């Protein structure tokens, strides 16, 4: 077992374990923190795949901005383990079994494939900022510009929703 495989397994265990902790911890704050760990693990995977740009963006945007936003909201609402609404046990069991069955079906379908396709690890320049930037601004410049409009509308939407609530309350 070489180092790459070891790192892969380590990161995978970390990601899956943290994800499970995320959905099973009572306190929302803990959930948020566990999710950040998952994102870090995924960023680790990106680095392992030599997708440097996405690894950094993932940490900055997801673990940084988005999760901080979550954390902010959770703390704003003062949510904690005591106020956490709990689904009844049987429904939880049904959910777990359903999800497990789905995983089983999909994994067994994947295992049936007997073609071995390898993934390029640690090398390759597809994930470098230069290549991605050239691709983004040459081939995907229109979607990029449209996404800025999307951001704008999302921003306006968030503001409008927040404001509307105020007027509705009065």
């Amino acid at each position, binding site marked *: 077992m070489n180092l790459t495989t070891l790192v892969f397994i380590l990161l995978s265990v970390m990601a899956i374990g943290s994800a499970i902790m995320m959905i099973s911890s009572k306190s929302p704050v803990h959930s948020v923190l566990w999710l950040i760990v998952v994102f870090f693990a995924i960023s680790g995977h990106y680095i392992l795949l030599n997708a440097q740009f996405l690894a950094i963006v993932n940490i900055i945007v997801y673990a940084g901005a988005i999760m901080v936003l979550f954390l902010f909201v959770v703390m704003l609402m003062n949510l904690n383990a005591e106020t956490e609404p709990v*689904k009844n046990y049987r*429904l939880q069991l*049904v*959910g777990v079994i*359903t*999800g497990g*069955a*789905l995983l089983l*079906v*999909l994994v067994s*379908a994947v295992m049936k494939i007997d073609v071995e396709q390898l993934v390029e690890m640690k090398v390759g320049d597809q994930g470098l900022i230069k290549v991605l930037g050239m691709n983004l601004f040459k081939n995907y410049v229109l979607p990029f510009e449209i996404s800025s409009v999307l951001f704008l509308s999302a921003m306006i939407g968030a503001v409008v929703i927040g404001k509307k609530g105020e007027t509705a309350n009065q």
Partner: protein
Amino acid sequence: MNSFSLLMNNIFKLVWLIPVLPLIGFLINGLGRKSLSKSLSGIIGSGVILGSFVLSLLVFFQVKNGNTATIHFFDFIRLENFKIGFDYKIDQLSSLFLLIITGVGFLIHVYSTSYMHDEENMNFAKYFSYLNLFVFSMLLLVMGGNFVIMFIGWEGVGLCSYLLIGYWFRNTDYTDAAKKAFIMNRIGDLGFLLALFWLITKIGSVQYDVVFSAASLAKLSATDITGITMLLFVGATGKSAQIPLYTWLPDAMAGPTPVSALIHAATMVTAGIYMIARSNALFSLAHQTQTVITIVGLATALLAASIAIKQNDIKKVLAYSTVSQLGFMFLALGTGNYVAAVFHVLTHAFFKALMFLGSGSVIHAMGGEQDIRKMGGLHKHMKITSVTFLIGCLAIAGIPGFSGFFSKDEILAGTFAHSPVLYGIALFAALLTAFYMFRLYIVTFTGTFRGTHDQEHHLHESPAAMTFPLIVLAILSIIGGYVGVPEVLGGHHELASYLSPVVKSAEHHLDHNTEYMLMGLSTILVVISISFAWMKFKNYKVEGEANGFGKVLENKWYVDELYQTAIVNPLKSISAFFNNIIESKVIDGAVNGVGKAVNYSSRQLRWLQSGQVGAYVLLMVIGMLILFFIQLFL
């Protein structure tokens, strides 16, 4: 004269008027029944029939000269390569029946104007409209150029029979009798209809000319011919009241007496004979069916005659007599003696209509009383009725010189040629006929009056409108037989030669000595039978309950009771079973069950729509799971 010959030459162009005139009468009387006065609706009702009679007479003379025609009006049913035309067939057979129907029909209409005079205005017109509709249907039946048009008339007369039997519909017994007649007829009609389908399947046509052509008959196998003729005969047994479907006819006496005379003696019940005589080409080939017809006809003749001996209702006696005489006609048909059958239809129409109208006259005089035990000695009070009735009795008994003698003798002679044993039975039935008819006459018209004093005071001869038809029919009953005087008595049997283009005459060749012997034998025996009746009933006293065999006869061999137990009651239990178990449990259960299942399942499914997003997501995931599973593994 010139214009008359012009009319004669173009008479076939006016043939359509013959049935249409009664139809017009039906429409006027039926629609205007609230506003027409009695005399007016009587005149319209009788007048249209008179018009038809005159036209029929002209047609008859034209046909007698050898002109026949098939007249096509329009296509009644038209399919891709199958046509049923609305055709009239005017030939020797149908024109003869036209005369009987319109002639006797006219007399009975005239009679009815007086007989029904006590009815309310509206019912009076209703009666005449039904009667006209009946004549229309009957004319359609005999004039139809194919079996389908005949079937239309066939159903029409059945309907009119139902309407007229149930004319006094406020009486439940009468409406029951009407229903009985209709249902029994329907059983027969089913046989007729199946025969038509069979014919259409095999030959592809119902046109008489086509069906009876040698080419078509060659297409039929022996099984086809036997099957078709048997089914047609089933139709005939229903309409013409033969075993096993005869029980409706005695009950049909619930209708007004002129109706019994017209429908249940002279015309409608002979439709079966007409149909078989019309299809003689077919029946002559079906020997098994002929045997069946012979046996059924003979059995009916004997059974009905034996029942008639013990009946006390004047109309019931005549009804059983009619059944018995129809049995004789079927006997003639079965022995291949079609001319004799048609001949007997003709003479029977005269003397049986005469006797029914005579009984109507008696009933009229007795104020509605029909029980002969309460009559007696009526000869003193109603001479015309009595004499004409006696003529009818002599005719039906077969006294030489009266019409019944010739036709009955011809039937008996034909039977003798066929089988002497059958002849013996038929002769016995004929003797019974003479016996019960004279029992009826003697008990009713001679001796002393046995009714109430009030009734005796009221006795009177009927008005001219009633006696006139009686006299005309009496004359016809005497002379009607002379159209068919057999060769052995020096005649030419004009009826046979007249009908020969349509109906094959019997091929029996008895030598003259045998025929003389048969005639003499039957005449002597009939006279003995009449004398016996005179001895037995001249001092008639009302008896108590009959016992032994007499009781069986009085109760009509318990045939009605047998039908009740063997057919009606099982049917009722089956219907009860279907009603109580199948209908309420199975069908209702299924129908309600579907409703309940939908209701229940929707109540249960309602809980799926909890409105909770989590539940929806769960269901979505389960659905995805199933889809993946199917996609990836199946």
